């Protein structure tokens, strides 16, 4: 465990150095790739099952699209069943997680994979609606469920 934290702090130190160099070049960018995005979301728990989204193959590195230059991230997730009633909650959890860890420059889109959900268009529209997302994150009950999935627990 200690070696992990050492290597992490080493990495952070390196990053900081890199940042300093970039700052001097006036390019303040910390490039991000699909692997890094995936590492942030893979351990989110399924709302109903005691498994992570990675274990249930709801998310995968292949289904993360990153356009670093444009600061755009799109995560496609695949609900376990076509009529999954938890699809919006899963999507919201992924969005919240990425909002918290990514630099502010990023625009994040979270969508269900094409053809993987019976109400694909509705779920996507809801997750894309910034006003609904903002309101959802002020809803105590909902936020509590999101927090549970983010901390690796089931929410139901």
């Amino acid at each position, binding site marked *: 465990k200690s070696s992990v934290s050492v290597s992490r702090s080493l990495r952070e130190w390196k990053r900081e150095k890199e940042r300093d160099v970039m700052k001097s070049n006036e390019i303040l960018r910390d490039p991000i790739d699909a692997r890094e995005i995936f590492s942030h979301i893979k351990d989110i728990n399924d709302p109903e099952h005691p498994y992570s989204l990675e274990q249930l193959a709801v998310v995968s590195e292949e289904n993360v699209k990153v356009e670093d230059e444009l600061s755009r991230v799109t995560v496609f997730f695949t609900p376990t069943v076509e009529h999954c009633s938890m699809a919006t909650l899963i999507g919201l959890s992924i969005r919240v997680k990425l909002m918290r860890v990514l630099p502010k420059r990023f625009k994040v889109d979270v969508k269900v994979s094409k053809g993987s959900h019976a109400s694909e268009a509705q779920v996507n529209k809801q997750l*894309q609606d910034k006003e*609904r997302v903002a309101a959802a994150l002020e809803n105590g009950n909902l936020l509590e469920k999101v927090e549970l999935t983010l901390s690796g627990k089931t929410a139901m």
Partner: protein
Amino acid sequence: NHKIALKATLVGHKDAVWCVAFEPNRNDILATCSSDKTVKIWKRNVVKRDDDDDDVKSSHQTCEFRCVCTLDGVHERTIRSVSWSPCGRYLASASFDATVAIYQRAEDEENEEEDEVKFECVAALEGHENEVKSCAWSPSGSLLATCGRDKSVWIWESAPGNHFECVAVLHGHTQDVKKVKWHETEDVLYSASYDDTVKTWKEDLDGDDWSCSGTTKAHESTVWDLTQEKVKEGGRFATVSDDGWVKIWKAGGAQRTEISGSSSSSGKKDDAAPLECSFRSGHDRPILCVDWLGDANRKNSESGNKKQPATLAAGGGDNSVRVYREKETGVWEEAAAVVNAHEDDVNDIAWFSMASEKEETEQSTNYFASASDDGTVKIWTFCSSNVDE
């Protein structure tokens, strides 16, 4: 030949700013509201100068605004929208906490000089089931419209003693209603929704009921905002959407002001909306706000210059602000844009007028403000050549 330039950045809100509204009669005072659960009133700074030549003190207004009042402790959640009454004495705020608050401005002309603007919350309107997303005062000042997540539009009538009575709860939208806007001069209401439509609401001839007089499926996705051309008897409309399109809708005379020509329930066979034109915007994320430049806000319009073409300002989820102009009827083009106007989504945009120091005959300068998720409000000028290339 057209240029947008940043003039000032208003910093003070601690979270996303959702709405910016100028005091209708003054334009040197503006109200903003935020996810930080406050409404802020900002006033333009005036710089007093001593003119040595003739010993006369002159003053001029700058583009700098400073916060002169913060209204907090009223709402428990994000405040999504603020609206001034036409007289400027009242302010309404709509919140995700399901309520609408009414503030009255303290009558204290003496303090005006001290740059104090005081408001007191005098009423709370309860009735919406959940998030209220927009509020708007009617041109007569007697009615207030609100709308929200519960798919309904409410119309409130103000009565003496700061009482507000609900006179209509309007159902018809099948999804949350994002925005309500009144006709420029009449008590005709328009609502834009997540259900991709715009609805027109009118009071019946006998004057005791409101009903939907037109529905237009305006876009392929959520209609985030609409704005009316500011001409006598009501002009055309512009709508903007999640789908990335701007659409211009025809409006006839005063009696034919609904965006849609008819609704299926009206019995008319023609359900086609009088769409004038539509164009794909430069925004590559949802377009969240739009405002039509009004004559009152058009600099130099009184000085006998050639009338400016119709002009729209829009902002969106791609952090940009863009100004569009009508080249000829039905043909619009992007006149200028600032790609990274803000560090986050641009939620609202509003033109305002301001006396500029120097008159330039070949150019006109218009001012607008933009409000963003980055917590700031920015003041911009749009300088345009009046001589078309």
